[in-house]
């Protein structure tokens, strides 16, 4: 099993990270990158597999974060239950989108974006529950079966654990009957319908799964950052998640993870550029978009192929002359 070996190796590399880089600031950022990876994986299911251009993932992320924070902070609910509820409430609220899943392409994008703006305004204005623009302070540290995740390293490992679970779950989902149906829908809706696939039901389920993933990512974020502000969950967040997925490579789960890591870490590494940081970031996004069809995940195999099949000029001539004969 080649792919299993690769997976174990990659997981091992992720586990090794906190032993190599012990600076707690960087571990915090790596945790954020893993949360970003969970978000990107969820959106990859929507865009990459089902071809649904959604700009509303930031809303579910926000719902999950606030549900988890409010439950633990005001009601003393234990973290594992709040974590689970964050996903469930986000998934249930995605049912509000059921009527709009039948929209096509750009209409769907704009409608989901509208949904995100509505949720943002609710988070901002219902300050009896969300703290409004002051935000929620002192979200408690996660405590799992009596063990409190106090250090950044603990939190990193927990994020890694959840991200790995989400990856495996989505991987199984994509290679199941459900995933094949989604692929059929994204390629040709009419043909899929003719094959007996109920389009709207599959699309709604897809939104449900993606919203659940975004919800648990939100819960992780709430207890990782320990401070929530509605401004973290505007449609800019949704756009950021979209950039992660497209930069990483459409339709590829490893691509979503790579894209998330690149998009979260790049601004940190560009920090030394000061004022030019965001300009450089924009330029990099544009350049990456032109680079290859499959994002970074598509770029790597292409490079490997170029290098392994590279021929020196005289070699090319030799083979040509051989063909001539």
């Amino acid at each position, binding site marked *: 099993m080649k792919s299993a070996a690769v997976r174990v190796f990659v997981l091992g590399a992720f586990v090794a990270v906190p032993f190599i880089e012990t600076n707690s600031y960087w571990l915090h950022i790596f945790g954020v990158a893993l949360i970003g990876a969970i978000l990107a994986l969820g959106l990859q299911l929507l865009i990459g597999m089902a071809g649904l251009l959604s700009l509303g993932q930031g809303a579910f992320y926000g719902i999950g974060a606030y549900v988890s924070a409010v439950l633990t902070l005001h009601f003393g609910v234990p973290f594992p239950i709040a974590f689970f509820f964050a996903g469930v409430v986000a998934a249930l609220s995605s049912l509000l989108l059921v009527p709009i899943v039948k929209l096509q392409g750009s*209409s769907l994008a704009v*409608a989901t974006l*509208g949904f995100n*703006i*509505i949720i943002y305004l609710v988070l901002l204005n219902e300050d009896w529950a969300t703290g409004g623009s002051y935000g929620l302070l002192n979200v408690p540290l996660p405590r799992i079966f009596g063990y409190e995740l106090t250090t950044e390293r603990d939190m990193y490992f927990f994020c890694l654990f959840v991200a790995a679970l989400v990856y495996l779950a989505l991987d199984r989902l994509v290679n199941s009957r459900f995933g094949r149906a989604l692929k059929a829908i994204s390629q040709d809706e009419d043909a899929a319908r003719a094959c007996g696939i109920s389009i709207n039901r599959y699309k709604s389920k897809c939104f449900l799964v993606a919203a659940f993933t975004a919800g648990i990512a939100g819960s992780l974020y709430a207890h990782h950052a320990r401070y929530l502000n509605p401004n973290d969950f505007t449609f800019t967040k949704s756009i950021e998640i979209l950039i992660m997925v497209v930069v990483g490579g459409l339709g590829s789960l490893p691509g979503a993870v790579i894209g998330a890591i690149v998009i979260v870490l790049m601004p940190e590494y560009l920090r030394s550029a000061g004022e030019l940081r965001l300009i450089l*970031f924009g330029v990099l*996004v544009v350049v990456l978009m032109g680079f290859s069809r499959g994002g970074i995940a598509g770029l790597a195999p292409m490079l490997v192929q170029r290098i392994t099949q590279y021929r020196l000029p005289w070699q090319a001539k030799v083979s040509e002359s051989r063909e001539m004969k």
Partner: protein
Amino acid sequence: MSAEQFIQGIIGGLAIGCIYSLIALGITMIIRATEILHFAQGELMMIGSMAGLSAMWMVDLPFVLVLVIGMIGGGVAAMLIELSIYRTLRSLRVPLINIVVATFGVSLILQNVARLVWGSEPLRYPSLFTSRGIDLGGFAISPQLIWIVVLGFAMMVILQLFFRYTRLGVAMQAAAQDPEAAQLMGISVKKTTTYTFVVAGVMAGAAGVLLGSLFFASFNMGFLVGIKAFVAATLGGLGSLTGAMLGGIAFGLIETFAGVLISTAYKDAVGMVVLIAILLLAPSGIFIRAGRRI
């Protein structure tokens, strides 16, 4: 709601609606010609606004000239982006979604370049008209708003005339409708696409000067307004010019009256709820049938 509030709501809604319409027209033209969802359109508006303001700092100009300079600013910025970025991306034959994501990158670049050039503080437009209100049977209406409505409508009429009566305008429409047939008729689709971006940028630049004169000009004024213009264009049916125009005005009115009648905090949410409701009833927008001819 008194009659005075009502009239002021109408005028205010029309003014902001005209601004949305001008931006939405550009978005729609670009979608028709290239299928690109251009999320940097709001930033073109911001560039136009800044260009007009900078010109006014240097010389004391009449408002119409400021508007023209804003239009030139938006048009030039759009042309540079199209030639350097979008044309390159199209020639690389990347999938459409890559270009759409690249427009977010462009939006980020334009915002931050503008922040470097013009600073991050909101900049005040000098008062362009006498601040004394026009007396309209007992209550006052700001002349600023009326000018915005008049100029906005004038721009839209000129755009329609351009599309109907000039060779270039007709060629642009032909290329948008059927690029292959247009190419066979001897139209350079490559060129008309660039012109489409220029005209869209000019419209956005005009919107920028009008919006700046109403509030402030700042490096981040464009993003939210651009998104709202997108909503307006969708409301009217993406791909129809008349739809974009009416959608913008409808969205401006909805937003203004929602602010007065329902709540200021949720005025944006009302617009979005209306959008989602309309998309459900008529998935291709309200004005698509009226707009198909143009």
